[in-house]
């Protein structure tokens, strides 16, 4: 992990630190990781990403309840996800945040949000943050889109205007899902934006 690398950076090794701080997120073409990890869904069932896979592909979005960026994008994210479900894309929103940091990120409040916003897909609790770690996810919201073969075809943000839906010029995630459904290549496979850092759960010492 990059954080471990950062811990051993010495004062003189400035340039080493610059490269060590790169994220370890999945590369385009990578296989969907942690597919068999069962997670609690807001419907009370235990669900793994392997169960979510759709005929056309799979969309996994690391998200949460509390984050202002998530709130700003919420309606746009849900629209894309629900449209994806209709088109045969399996969708899971995954919350890897420790609810001890924000109680708003608890399962109970996830259930309320999923109902209020009309999630037509799973909203899962990554209760050790292991799935987020396997993806190399660092922030919310952060989307990963896989094709029917489970290969990553898109990784990044929702669109290019966080706070103002009316000013979106580049619909990155929507365009990626549309391309996947249409059997085309994703034009912009990697994008980014500022997001909330994932509040990783502490892993018990081995």
């Amino acid at each position, binding site marked *: 992990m990059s*954080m471990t690398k*950062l811990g051993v950076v010495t*004062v*003189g090794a*400035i*340039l080493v*630190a*610059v490269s060590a*701080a*790169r*994220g370890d*997120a999945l590369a385009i073409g990578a296989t969907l990781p942690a597919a068999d990890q069962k997670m609690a869904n807001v419907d009370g069932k235990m669900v793994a990403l392997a169960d979510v896979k759709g005929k056309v592909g799979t969309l996994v979005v690391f998200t949460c309840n509390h984050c*202002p*960026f998530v709130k*700003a994008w919420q309606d746009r994210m849900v629209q894309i996800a629900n449209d994806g479900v209709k088109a045969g894309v399996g969708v899971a929103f995954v919350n890897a945040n420790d609810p001890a*940091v*924000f109680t708003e990120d608890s399962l109970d409040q996830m259930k309320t949000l999923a109902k209020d916003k009309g999630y037509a897909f799973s909203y899962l609790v990554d209760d050790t943050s292991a799935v987020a770690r396997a993806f190399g996810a*660092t*922030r919310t919201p952060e989307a990963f889109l896989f094709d029917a073969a489970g290969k990553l075809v898109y990784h990044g*943000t929702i669109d*290019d*205007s*966080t*706070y*103002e839906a009316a*000013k979106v010029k580049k619909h990155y995630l929507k365009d990626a899902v549309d391309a996947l459904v249409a059997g085309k290549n994703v034009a912009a496979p990697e*994008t*980014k*934006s*500022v*997001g*909330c*850092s*994932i*509040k990783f759960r502490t892993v018990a010492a081995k």
Partner: protein
Amino acid sequence: MQTSPQVRLSPLTGIVLAAVLLAGTAAMADSGPTNASPSLRVVSAGDLKTLLGQARGTTTLVHVWATWCPPCREELPSVLRFRAAHTGHGLEVILVSADAPKQRPQIVSYLAQAGVAFSSYLIDNPDAIFIDTLCTNWSGALPASFFFGPKGELRQWWEGKADPEKYEETAEALSKQVRNGGRQ
């Protein structure tokens, strides 16, 4: 809508009231930094690039944070102490908030409570262009800190909260490099 029958102002009273209000507004605008109302300018990524260009000749720390972000709130006091210790000694600190622009009043109030009396900034759209203006490898997670050298080149950066010692060690290492003419 109902009107209130009790209060009727004469035209003269209205003019006097308007004058008092105007004078009050002018006094507030002129009162400067002593009233602890920090200036917070909404900037684009392009504006930020210009600011970094103007900071050439000194080491500049750009610190990106947000009021609602717990690690950012925990770290801000030590960043402010770091700024106080180094400003004017070859290092400048630029604070950039990634809060929503509509949250501006809350951010100004938060900065005032934190004792910030200097100008800081609020990014209008925290998109990829903003990220790449600071560092193309930054994932976009908050908080994040970026040290630029005197020629505007990125020398060190990290995302996530850091100890005050890390800021000090970085400043010391960079100042040594500057003294050595930019060599490692």
